[in-house]
């Protein structure tokens, strides 16, 4: 199986860390992984984005035109990238910042998750990226929550390992919110 996920937001939302976490989790599950941090003119506007492809076989192109799943954490990335999601794919949106009322994208399932709010409830808005990863795990079924948790040790620098329990709480909150949407 080959999976791809695109993550975008603004600098400071931990987009690259989220990408690294999903990558380590995919490696943990025995996959090959490509993590491609996109940069270019967009980088200067403070935008951050990355594409992760993982597969038990060949990862193929690190560049993906229409991702199967996109995690869009701010209004700008929603505007720019929501419509690029593959037909039949899923667009997980940070509904704390993005107003999706009335928005319809034919063939794309939009899953609003109030990521900032959930992160704040855990005590740190910087956990939005972890909430997003938890929601991804639940929606895609591609990576187990336990793999994400195991991967934290690799994705976080040593000095931040004391934050692992809080990160786990955030991942689980994201997964729970997504599960409620699925039901």
């Amino acid at each position: 199986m080959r999976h791809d996920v695109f993550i975008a937001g603004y600098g400071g939302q931990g987009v690259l860390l989220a990408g690294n976490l999903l990558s380590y989790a995919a490696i943990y599950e025995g996959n090959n992984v490509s993590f491609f941090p996109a940069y270019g003119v967009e980088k200067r506007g403070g935008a951050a984005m990355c594409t992760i492809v993982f597969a038990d076989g060949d990862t193929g192109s690190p560049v993906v035109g229409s991702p199967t799943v996109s995690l869009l954490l701010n209004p700008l990335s929603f505007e720019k990238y929501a419509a690029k999601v593959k037909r039949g794919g899923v667009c997980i949106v940070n509904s704390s910042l993005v107003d999706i009322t009335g928005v319809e994208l034919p063939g794309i399932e939009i899953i609003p998750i109030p990521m900032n709010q959930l992160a704040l409830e855990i005590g740190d808005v910087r956990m939005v990226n972890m909430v997003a990863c938890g929601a991804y795990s639940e929606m895609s079924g591609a990576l187990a929550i336990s793999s994400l948790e195991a991967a934290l040790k690799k994705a976080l620098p040593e000095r931040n390992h004391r934050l692992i329990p809080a990160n786990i709480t955030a991942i689980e909150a994201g997964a729970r919110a997504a599960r409620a949407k699925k039901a």
Partner: protein
Amino acid sequence: MNSPVTEKIFVKGNEAVAMAALEAGCRCYFGYPITPQSDIPEYLSRELPKTGGEFLQAESEIGAINMLLGASAAGVRAMTSSSGPGISLKQEGISYMAGSELPGVIVDIMRQGPGLGGIDASQADYFQATRGGGHGGYRIIVLAPNSVQEMYDLTMLAFDLSDLYRIPAMVLADSVIGQMKESIVANARPEVVLPEKGWAVRGRGEGTEQNVVKSLKLGDGEMEKFHWMMHDRYQLLADKENRWEEYQTDDAELIVTAFGSTSRISKTAVTMAREAGMKVGLMRPVTLFPFPKPAYAALSERCKLFLTIELSTGQMVDDVRLSVARDAEVAFYGRPPGAGSLPTPEELFEQIAHRYRARPAVAEVTL
């Protein structure tokens, strides 16, 4: 991580180059900062001293390549790395190294140009790399990785081939391959039997001949002889060291061909075409010099339509055209480098589908 399945590490392409250099026994690194390759000197400034090696940030790329010349002449494994503007400055030194038959590894993480250009991925330095780049008429070995694993493996190979043939070797990648992270296995250095560097300058000592490393050749016929000797050596290199990858070419009626980053994007596009019922394959040269001409020639005996894809207005396509049979058609699709010009697999699929549908019908065999 106590991973249950693999012993894979997750690193950037540029870091893989630096790790491979250490594993290959590189003793000296000389470089000058330039994006998008600075991870290489940054990694080696930290790690090379721990192994007793020398890391030196030169005052310029001209300085760096000449330091490489000196270290190689002294018989140790050495490396430099840069990108477009810096590689241009190194050309003088590379020419001197080629003229002095010196090994040495040069890593080029291509960025868009000409001039200052920008830092986005490019393949427009294909000609500069494969045609020698400097003055005098020479070639260097050019290896084109398309994954982080190959950044690692081909960097080690570059050291071996360079020592074996006494030709400078270049690892030619771009900012996509340099900046992306992948899971790789940090293989141990392969066992290769290499000749002694009897030519190296180590101090004359007693009872042995003086060693001289030079490119000045003034004797009657001396330079002509040198050129023919190198010509034969390039031929030997072509006979023995061509490397390429084929994917689904057996029954292909259209073969896509690309190197480095675009070959990765192309491969997914080829898979998409197969899923849509089209008989499409991929041919990827791994060595750009030597260019795997015989492999192209063989493919063109059974497939008459090629599509070359590059991040330029067309450079490698010339070599493809020179390699295939006369009755094979070589089409081209290019996205010159720059922000926003990296093609997606979907875009390449469209290009493939459109060419595939328009291909001349294969003559029906009627009885």
